[in-house]
């Protein structure tokens, strides 16, 4: 399933078609990139350039003032700022590792074996892709509060472990691992758990790396919203969003924050994008 690196010249191409299509590509590329360029430039603009009239897209005299202001704002926050950083690291790390482990552990038997209930479980997972978590937000809140998870890390972590998109992608990737490999390990007397750990996980590396990225993105941006109300348990994204709310004078700092929040998950994606693409090749819904 390796992604082909070299592509031969394709047949059936006309110059006119090429021009039209690449014009479209350039146009939409600008639409996508323009606000991002705006964010990058604003983050390095001094205040007088941010509030310049008429507004200019590109920065003239780049400065790190916005970041200096951000750091000084951080140092007089309600709880030590390192606490927010710790919360985010803790939630992101535990949530990502836990979710990858739990999803892959379930994905292997569901992908490779038939046992009573396996078909209905797989069906439920596909159906659950068809609606968003926003629909179930309110009863989820009730469940979380009943379980006594309100105002704890668990309120963010445990629902993450039940995310179906990641499981679905893993399951589809594992299906295409040759049955012969699993059968022969079985002949040698390996248990399901052992096969999972020694055969499936190494081969499904692109899939769980994809899952790492998806969960990392979700958890990195999680603010805790209505679930977490103790200041000392709030994550970084919440603290930064509070700094941004400070009004016009904070416009520069806000841009610095936006760039920071964007650059971290983007970097993670750039590093691992070839694995993601390889996994997505198996993402399709079978007929």
């Amino acid at each position: 399933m390796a992604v082909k690196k070299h592509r031969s010249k394709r047949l059936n191409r006309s110059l006119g078609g090429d021009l039209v299509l690449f014009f479209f590509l350039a146009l939409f590329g600008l639409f996508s990139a323009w606000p991002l360029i705006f964010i990058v430039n604003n983050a390095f603009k001094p205040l007088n350039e941010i509030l310049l009239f008429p507004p200019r897209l590109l920065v003239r005299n780049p400065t790190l003032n916005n970041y200096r202001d951000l750091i000084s704002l951080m140092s007089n926050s309600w709880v030590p700022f390192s606490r927010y950083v710790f919360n985010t690291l803790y939630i992101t790390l535990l949530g990502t590792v836990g979710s990858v482990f739990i999803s892959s552990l379930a994905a292997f038997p569901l992908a490779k074996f038939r046992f009573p209930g396996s078909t209905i479980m797989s069906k439920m997972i596909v159906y659950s892709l068809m609606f968003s978590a926003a629909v179930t937000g309110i009863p989820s809140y009730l469940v979380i509060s009943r379980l006594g998870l309100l105002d704890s890390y668990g309120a963010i972590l445990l629902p993450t472990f039940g995310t179906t998109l990641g499981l679905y992608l893993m399951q589809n990737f594992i299906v295409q691992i040759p049955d012969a490999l699993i059968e022969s390990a079985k002949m040698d007397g390996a248990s399901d758990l052992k096969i999972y750990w020694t055969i499936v996980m190494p081969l499904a590396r692109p899939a769980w790396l994809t899952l790492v990225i998806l969960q990392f993105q979700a958890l990195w941006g999680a603010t805790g919203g209505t679930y977490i109300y103790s200041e000392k348990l709030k994550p970084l994204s919440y603290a930064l969003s509070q700094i941004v709310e400070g009004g016009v004078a904070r416009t520069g700092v806000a841009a610095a924050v936006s760039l920071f929040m964007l650059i971290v998950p983007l970097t993670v994606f750039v590093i691992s994008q070839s694995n993601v693409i390889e996994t997505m090749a198996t993402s399709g819904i079978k007929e």
Partner: protein
Amino acid sequence: MVSGASDLGPRGKLQRLWREMRHNKMKYLMVAPFMTAFFLFVFLPVFSSILLSLTNFNMLQMPQFIGAQNYINLLLHDAIFLIAIRNTLLIAFITGPLSYLLCFILAWLINELKRPLRVFLTVVFYAPSISGNAFLIWRLIFSSDLYGYANSTLVNWGFIQEPLLWLQDPKYIIWIVILVQIWLSLGVSFLSFIAGLQNVDRTLYEAGAIDGVRNRWQELWHITLPSMKPQLLFGAVIQITASFSVGDVSMQLAGFPSVSYAGRTVITHLMDYGTIRFEMGYASSIATLLFLTMIFANLVIQKLIRRVGQ
């Protein structure tokens, strides 16, 4: 012990099932942690939404069964809900198909490029969807004074005389929400399409050229699209689900509540009753309707896509 499979009574069947389940003990243990989380945070919320939608429930007293009353109020007596439905359908009917087509067309175009450029463009297109709150930059772009990028550009070019109140004027709010939603929409399905295109069997193209496929459009319809039908189905599910659940973008850009409810969607209506008024029964009926709509739209579109290339 039971000798033959043919003369199994209901008891024997149960016994056999039990044996089979015990035989697969390890598999159940492996599935259990995920299924527990799934049950608690996906299945149970959906199930209890449906039940609570038939009650009057304010979180303090016990839920009180009132039958279909919530649905009757919602559909017949809630004028704002009708605005929410109209907005949600408008957003879904525009952003759903448009974002789906964009995901595909852009993936298709990128696929013909050389590797460094292809990776670069993949990142550029995908970046907005992982950017968390970065879409708030649009608040600056559509700011209502002359410092807003949109206003100052349009005034400079002479299209308008004075700044427009983009995010306060009901005429524009919904269109800006749609625009930003499209900007955000090249996500997982876009990646799925790129991957699908890269894995179409190359020999099919050569065979097609011999069989008389003359241009790229015929090639697209007769070879490419049928080869990546599974990805097309997956992408449709993701885009449909996203296009019906627009809420946060509207709340952040247009405010909550927005001017004349111009940015009100079913999700923001749900948030209003669920997190501000604490009318949980009513909120649950909104959630149930939206849930059914999403599933229905998905099943219909799946049927349609299965016909591609036939």
